[in-house]
């Protein structure tokens, strides 16, 4: 964390990306919050209104610079909410700022531990001799399955390839990671899910963001798997930390506020190949059986209750 002492050269996006690089275990919202806390420590705003302005400027900058900003905005909004609630608790500005920075650290600590908590809560969902289906690469799901393995539960995993993907964090990486942990895995194409769904006992999925209705925003292909699972009467469990709950309420996959791409246009030009730009989609809450989070196991309707409590004025 080689933070620049010269405040003018402090770049929030750079700091954020550095955090992501340095710690492979970190999630995007947590990295965002770390960057914001660092910014607070360095820039040292002298009044609360300056603080709030600084925060909103930085969050806007961050959201613009990163292409897939949903879980990022969840983290930023959470931190902003936390700051706004606590600024008026202290009369002395210095102690207020110290308190914010300390609590920021505490929050980060809790967020890092949340994956462990989720594993402890969720491993019971994996029973002996289960066949589990997972979609794309998710560290939380990986952690949960690893914990289940250490509790001597024997199970097998189907992993979807999860195309299209350019970040390298797709099904191939997940399958390799599982095999390294000694969990028998089978890598399948996304189109083979329908064939395989009847052999599967349950589906586990991570999430980039959990919307207010309890639906999830995740790697493209999640919606398809959700519909197939519901049709085959297989439970779908979403595994996600609570800081990914975002104040969004999409009604359909095309209602997501991502930068609209030129994908999905029709033309007669043979040069244009696959529409690989569409990388996330939205799964409505009726396809999700339960949400395993560090707050416990929630039904999709409990998500909005948690969000309301968090944002309660």
């Amino acid at each position: 964390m080689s933070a620049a002492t010269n405040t003018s050269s402090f770049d929030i996006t750079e700091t954020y990306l550095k955090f992501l690089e340095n710690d492979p275990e970190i999630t995007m919202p947590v990295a965002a919050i770390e960057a914001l806390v660092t910014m607070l420590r360095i820039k040292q705003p002298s009044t609360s209104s300056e603080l709030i302005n600084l925060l909103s400027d930085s969050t806007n900058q961050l959201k613009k610079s990163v292409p897939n900003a949903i879980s990022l905005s969840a983290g930023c909004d959470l931190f902003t909410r936390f700051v706004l609630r606590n600024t008026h608790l202290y009369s002395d500005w210095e102690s207020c700022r110290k308190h914010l920075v300390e609590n920021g650290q505490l929050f980060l600590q809790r967020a890092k531990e949340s994956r462990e908590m989720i594993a402890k809560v969720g491993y019971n969902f994996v029973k002996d001799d289960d066949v589990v289906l997972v979609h794309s690469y998710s560290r939380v799901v990986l952690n949960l399955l690893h914990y289940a393995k250490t509790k001597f539960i024997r199970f097998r995993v189907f992993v979807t390839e999860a195309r299209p993907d350019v970040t390298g964090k797709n099904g191939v990486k997940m399958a390799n990671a599982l095999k390294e942990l000694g969990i028998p895995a089978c890598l399948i194409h996304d189109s083979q899910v329908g064939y395989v769904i009847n052999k599967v006992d349950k589906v586990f999925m991570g999430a980039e963001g959990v919307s207010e209705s309890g639906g999830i925003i995740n790697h493209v292909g999640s919606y398809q798997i959700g519909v197939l699972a519901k049709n085959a009467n297989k439970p779908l469990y979403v595994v996600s930390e609570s800081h990914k709950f975002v104040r969004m309420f999409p009604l359909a996959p095309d209602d997501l506020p991502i930068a609209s791409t030129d994908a999905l246009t029709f033309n007669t030009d043979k040069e244009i190949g696959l529409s690989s730009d569409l990388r996330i989609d939205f799964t409505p809450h009726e396809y999700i059986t339960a949400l395993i989070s560090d707050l416990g196991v929630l039904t999709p309707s409990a998500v909005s209750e948690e969000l309301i409590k968090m944002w309660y004025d």
Partner: protein
Amino acid sequence: MGNAIRWLKQKISQIPIEMSDDDAKVQLNEDIDLFIQEKILYSGKVITQFASGHIQNNSKILTYGHSEVLKKLFKYCAIEENKSFEIYIVDSKPLFEGKKLAKELSSVKNIKCHYNLITSLSSVLERSSIDFCFLGANSMLSNGRLYSRVGTALVAMSSKNKNIPVLVCCESIKFSDKVQLDSVTLNELGDADDMINTKPFNKTGFNLQQYLNKLEAKKLEEQNSTGGKKGQQQQQQSKKEKDDKLLQSSQKNEETLSNWKDYPSLNILNVLYDLTPPEYIQKIITEVGALPPSSVPVILREYKSIT
């Protein structure tokens, strides 16, 4: 409405005993004004902000009856945000509330209005690719059900059937902690005579009226020109007789069932409200944000301390 009365009673009970009656009245008046501002006027504005994101250029929107909040929303989107869109207004007997909405919205530029009765709802949904269905509320019950004008449930169900998202705009003051499982348990009855004696737009049909007008015009011409041919006159007279008979019979139709009270086994039912189950509603937009219908009791719980 129960919420408002309860709030007022609470305010009254909170007035200190030493305060004089006049002072108390002044303070109460101020409180009531503030209440109206906050809970009703401001809430309407905030709901408009939240909901306007759904209405894009060239959207097609379905709505039922007349709702103040929705009217504000549509006007805001058309005038302030300069979006042009189409609205399908569905209406029903005997109140014909949709007429009011249609009248107000048709004078707004950028809005194209279509007006239908609920009897033609399935045809409307079949032919036009509607994007959203916006509904107003009388109240939201604790089990996520929408208590609104009779006919709302039908519109919501048909929309859900066609995969059209149903959005309800409702201020949080309308949230009630009642639980009701069906529309019959608690409802209001309107005047039964309204169902019988509603006059349609014309006593005679549109084509018939035009024909009659033409006849009148021809008659005037004949009278002005010198000497009409007798044969023509006779033809016209026999036609006129037929028309008079038609008029008489349509008048008689109006009088059918106006003596319904004389028939002991006939009951006319005019219910005013119905209940829409939560599975037909996608999203409820209130001034505290958008929520799924299952979260209504959460809002009541969290915000009860404020009211």
